[in-house]
């Protein structure tokens, strides 16, 4: 079956611009997570959704970062006024319910020039 999909696969933007990254989880998975991975590091947690609501957004680095999941399926991570330090691979994962194994998508590589 289809896994987690993320679009775009690559995004290049200029400092100060706004970007949106999309995640389409595995069908039937109610839990959705966003992580950020810098070169040579492990993924770092950003936010977790259970259904439509953000159950844990403790990993969002500041108020420039925001994520939504309006219908409990597809999620969008939004970054305002991008900075060069936001450059990383943004990973999305989903699981059947909280506590189950998380399955990751291929990631979106964001480059801020």
């Amino acid at each position: 079956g289809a896994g987690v999909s993320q679009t775009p696969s690559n995004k290049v933007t200029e400092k100060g611009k706004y970007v949106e990254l999309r995640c389409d989880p595995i069908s039937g998975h109610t839990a959705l997570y966003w992580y950020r991975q810098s070169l040579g590091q492990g993924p770092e947690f950003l936010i977790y959704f259970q259904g439509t609501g953000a159950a844990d957004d403790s990993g969002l680095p500041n108020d420039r970062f925001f994520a939504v999941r309006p219908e409990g399926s597809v999620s969008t991570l939004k970054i305002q006024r991008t900075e060069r330090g936001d450059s990383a691979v943004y990973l999305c994962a989903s699981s059947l319910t909280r506590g189950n194994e998380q399955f990751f998508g291929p990631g979106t590589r964001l480059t801020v020039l």
Partner: protein
Amino acid sequence: EDQVTQSPEALRLQEGESSSLNCSYTVSGLRGLFWYRQDPGKGPEFLFTLYSAGEEKEKERLKATLTKKESFLHITAPKPEDSATYLCAVQGELRGGGNKLTFGTGTQLKVEL
């Protein structure tokens, strides 16, 4: 705060040369320890979940074990296709409905002919 330390950072093996990767962790109330494999330019691929000390799981040439302080990923008679970065992650006690994984920085494995 949950912490994961993986060693070695990099490991080079000859085909057929067995070895082990280490994952040391500190966590408040372990709910699960996860192993993932990550190939360059791709998202992490789920391998194993371990829940309690003494538990072991196997898949092909890989075997994961768990104690109260660390986990080992044993690789028996590796092949070049086992070359990848292996990530360890822990899931700690529920806080405010959170379900995040805390990752280590990974062990980069290279298996040569």
